[in-house]
């Protein structure tokens, strides 16, 4: 088992893939290290949100993910 990273919206284009499997456990620094370079700076920016197993993390840097978890990177939305 591993951790699944899911890239939404344009982040999938930048990552070159809609999702990625990475080894567990994962914290914030670990996440940044496993991101494709095109994404690392963006991921740290205010406009990209992070969700762990469907819950938005108020504090991205507090990320702590384990086996079987899913982390979603969410760029600014455009709906309606």
């Amino acid at each position, binding site marked *: 088992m591993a951790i699944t990273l*899911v890239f*939404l*919206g*344009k982040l999938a*284009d930048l990552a070159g893939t809609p999702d990625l499997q990475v080894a567990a456990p994962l914290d914030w620094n670990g996440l940044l290290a496993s991101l494709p370079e095109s994404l690392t700076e963006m991921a740290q920016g205010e406009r990209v949100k992070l*969700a762990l*197993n*469907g819950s*938005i993390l108020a504090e991205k840097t507090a990320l702590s993910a384990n086996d079987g978890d*899913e982390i*979603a990177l*969410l*760029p*600014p*939305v*455009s*709906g*309606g």
Partner: protein
Amino acid sequence: MARDVCLLESDGWTPAVALEAFAAAHPQAGGLASFIGKVRPDEGVEALELSHYAPLTLPGMEALAEQTLARWPLDGILIHHRTGIMRPGAPIVLVAAAARHRRDAFEAADFAMDHLKSDAWFWKREKRSDGWHWIEPRAQDHADLERWQRDSRRTA
């Protein structure tokens, strides 16, 4: 029953049908206000794609419906939103509110639409002759959200 929230993954959807069912479910309402958002028929746009994130999108729409119901005295609120690929002119979103008084119905529908534009977990891209382009949110959309906060502070 107050809440009718659907995330529509297929395109066999006519807002009129959903509206009629909503009206039939709330015959005592004094009025119904509704809004349909469509794929703008823009020269050069061949298609629009909406993507969503399952763990967040529908639950977020349901939470928005609850929020709207909590804020205005409504008989019912309807939020239907497409996801997937759509052609120009196709409907993307339908919002409707049924209430005793028209002011509540209008405001509730307006509130829900503003939040769907700026707060709901969807991402849009359009297809032009040179490929797909992601759509960035407009500053206007965020300003739209703020007016609901200003209003609530005023009444507090």
